[in-house]
């Protein structure tokens, strides 16, 4: 199984012929390839295979193994699912997460929430440990955006506001504290 997946290619390491050793023919052949591409792109630009990254981007395939820029998931009422437990900050090998915890003042039974949640993407190594560590299913790396291509360091610094976002089909209801919150939210709605 494994053997079939690995394709091997034999490289022919024969010595150079005289013509090749003179280089001139090889340089001319190389120029020919360059010129061919130049004229083809000139007359038919839609054929160009590269894009002007970061202004233009190729959409990424949806893939469970793909790790892209982080986001913080939201509950139904728009509060972050994150409970500021610091598990992600503890697990992060790049020390790029910085959380400030606070206490809900509106009687929310989850008690704790992140007042601040910063990720310095310029230090992040995209390892996904934070997602792995989160007990509340609150952080995800599925925005489909590849961080990078920024002109300043500040652009790579994500604050809570940049991170909070639900994707279509959400909010998800997973997470122990989330359950508490949903119950409470239900009673609140009934009272209203």
């Amino acid at each position, binding site marked *: 199984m494994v053997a079939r997946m690995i394709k091997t290619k034999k490289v022919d390491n024969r010595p150079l012929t005289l013509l090749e050793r003179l280089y001139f023919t090889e340089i001319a052949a190389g120029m020919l390839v360059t010129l061919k591409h130049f004229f083809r792109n000139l007359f038919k630009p839609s054929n160009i295979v590269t894009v002007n990254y970061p202004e233009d981007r190729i959409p990424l395939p949806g893939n469970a193994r793909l790790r892209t820029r982080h986001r913080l998931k939201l509950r139904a009422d728009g509060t972050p699912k994150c*409970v*500021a*437990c610091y598990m992600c900050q503890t697990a992060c090998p790049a020390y790029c997460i910085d959380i400030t915890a606070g206490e809900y003042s509106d009687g929310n*039974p989850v008690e*704790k929430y992140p007042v601040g949640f910063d990720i310095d993407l310029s230090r992040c190594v995209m390892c996904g440990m934070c997602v792995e560590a989160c*007990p509340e299913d609150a952080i995800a790396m599925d925005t489909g955006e590849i961080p990078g291509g920024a002109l300043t360091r500040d652009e790579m610094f994500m604050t809570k506001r940049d991170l909070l976002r639900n994707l279509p089909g959400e909010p998800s209801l997973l997470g*122990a*504290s989330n*359950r508490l919150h949903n119950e409470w939210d239900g009673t609140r709605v009934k009272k209203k």
Partner: protein
Amino acid sequence: MKLKIDGKETQVQPGTSILGAAQAMGVLIPRYCYHPSLSVAGNCRICLVEIEGAPKLVTACSTPCAEGMSVLTTSEKVRAARRDVLEFLLINHPLDCPICDQAGECGLQDYYMEHGLHKSRFPQADKVRRHKRRDVGKYLVLDNERCILCTRCVRFCEEVTKTGELCVRERGDRSYIDLKPGSRLDNDYSLNIADICPVGAFTSADFRFKKRVWFLERTASVCAGCATGCPIEVHHRDNIVYRLMPRPEEGFPAWLCDEGRMTCKSLRAPGRPAAAFCEEGNLKPAAGLRFAASRLGKLKPEQVAIFGSPFMSLEDNLALAELAAAIGTKNFCLHFSTEPGIKDGILKNTDHSPNSRGLALIHAVYGGYTREQFSERLASGEVRFVLGRNEEVKAALAAAKTDIPSSVFSFSDEPAPGRACVLPAASHFESDCLFINYAGRLRRARAAVKAPEGVLPVWQAADRIASMLGAPIRLETRAAVLERLKAKIPELAAAPLSDDKAEFELK
């Protein structure tokens, strides 16, 4: 009395519990309700051990050793019992670890990882729900869902503070910890309950959500809240002190008073000066010292008064005494009269200063006025400038009903007297320093965090001022100060001042 624990012979005094005997051998038997400073309750059952020949497992905390007993603490039966007890305790336990301040130092988490590791057989929806986030006292938050009913908190209030605010209500799986009617947990030692609660039921309201405990760094130090000088551990991170915890030391109980724990608050009090503040406005701390020196330099020696304080360390008071000698003034006071003693029978001293014994030693060598005489000197009108600690200079000026200019060392956000130049000073959390407590024991405070830039301890500031005046006292380094202390104070001549570990007690 001889017995065997896990096959190893040991000898104990009659009356020792199995748990105590095992601990002396280095075998740690898990425990929740047992606390060395409280009575034995034997209700949590996590400490079950097997005695060869006995029909049932017994609780190690409440069973005394018997001659020839052979105890097994790791047999299959014992391990199964621990796992089951733990599962029992966790049946109604909420899934709160992510928001629980106890996480990281929680008995349930620790023993679950060590002995449990079972899958939960109880659905979350069936758990008994109880009152959460209860405001039970000034410093405490109670979460009844997390409680395992070990009754440590109840026993603490009964036996240590003898105030008895807590009780267990109801029976069976309905039982919960509650305040007795009409009472609140506001005794002077209430925060110890957060420490002894093995789970996150009682947590500190002050430390709440401030930091995860595994991020904290620890520095062994002493409390300067009163003359008892309790051993503390300063928990800090990124130059912020988050909490003070008791540290075990021979001769001290495992408690701290609430007031002592809150002494770290003054460090980051919004009004605490980080710059010198004079008539000219804000100055860098070094410029503030220069300003004080220029003031001093313009006056005759007898117009200057220097005021030592029992709230400052040995080093600080020695440097001030030396400064007075170098200037050549007779107007200095290193005196403080007090009646120390532990009136409540636990910890809190009637003498609120950490170093009155130390000050007395320096007073005995350097002399100077008593407080009453000093007050008269200030009132006499001859003195034109005072140097000392903010709070005391203020009180002395008020008592003498004068308003002479002063330079005051400020450790906190306490406002300064009207005509004072405030000099910020590094506190005992920010510099290594020595105190002598009411019983004559040498207490070592160690720097846990850094003082704001340029802010010096008082002894260093006094040394700088002396140099600027052209009357150097040569106390540039702490080693020099300690040498001088040993050379000048006969009682400290043999004291191991620079050996950070050594204990010392005055005769």
